[in-house]
């Protein structure tokens, strides 16, 4: 005898799947969205790179104005750059020190991890 209810496997499957799909009515919002929007952080958490860029630019301009204001000429800046190069060259051999390289790598990895996964506001 042919079953007429859920005893038939194909009918049972269809009926069961239809029931499962119907089992979740839409929940009314009842102010939930408003509460979420109120809980969002005040400052922008997206698109912060442009503001950082603006700050860096402002800092550079202020530094340049400060340098010009104190009578530093381009020639003096070139001489300062040469001295900086010499200083860097003198510490260059240290860069081959495995211990120092390991320390730098750990520091870099830590900063990268914190920047990518943590709360960026802690760093910036």
């Amino acid at each position: 005898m042919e079953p007429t209810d859920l005893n038939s496997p194909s009918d049972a499957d269809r009926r069961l799947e239809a029931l499962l799909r119907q089992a979740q009515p839409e929940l009314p919002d009842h102010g939930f969205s408003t509460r979420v929007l109120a809980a969002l952080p005040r400052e922008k958490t997206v698109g912060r790179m442009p503001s950082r860029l603006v700050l860096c630019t402002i800092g550079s301009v202020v530094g340049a104005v400060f340098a010009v204001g104190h009578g530093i000429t381009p020639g003096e800046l070139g001489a300062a750059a040469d001295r900086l190069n010499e200083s860097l060259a003198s510490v260059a051999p240290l860069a081959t020190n495995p211990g120092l390289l390991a320390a730098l790598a750990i520091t870099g990895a830590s900063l990268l991890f914190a920047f990518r996964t943590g709360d960026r506001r802690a760093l910036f």
Partner: protein
Amino acid sequence: MSPPDSALIARTLASDDRAAFGELVLRHQSAVRHFLRHLTRGDLATADDLAQETFVQAYRGLAGFRGTAEFSTWLLGIAHNHWRNARRRQRDHAPLDPEAPEQTAGPATQHSDLRSDLAVALRDLSADEQLAIHLGYQQGKSHAEIATLLDWPLGTVKTHLARGKEKLRHHLSAWNPQT
């Protein structure tokens, strides 16, 4: 015609458009809250708190949404992580939903409503089977999406769905709406 999720996401990212994000919340709140109600076994307050945290986290991490999965799937993944973290913190059992049908083990009776029988039968499944059934049928997610969302192998998803359905069929086999 309402804009697609991708357009609302783009507006939120481009200009911190909170109205656009609010539209996303409105659009997906039901699915996320249903999912968390399921995970917390009907603890409505905890589920809504976790849902709120889910959306705030989604807002913070919106730039990381690559669009490889549906936005709703991405949200459910965040919700699942929040629930797991909360469970780890609390280490206690959530109360059952007071509105849920009373758990009366055994096959469906002729006098009960089929839907309430189904709710009772669902409670007899393992937690993983319930989760797979909820995501697969009540949330309409594909096997691949469930696998990604829960970090399960695809075979495990299929197994849990098949076993869950088999158990439900068995529970509901006595049901005959004509009687």
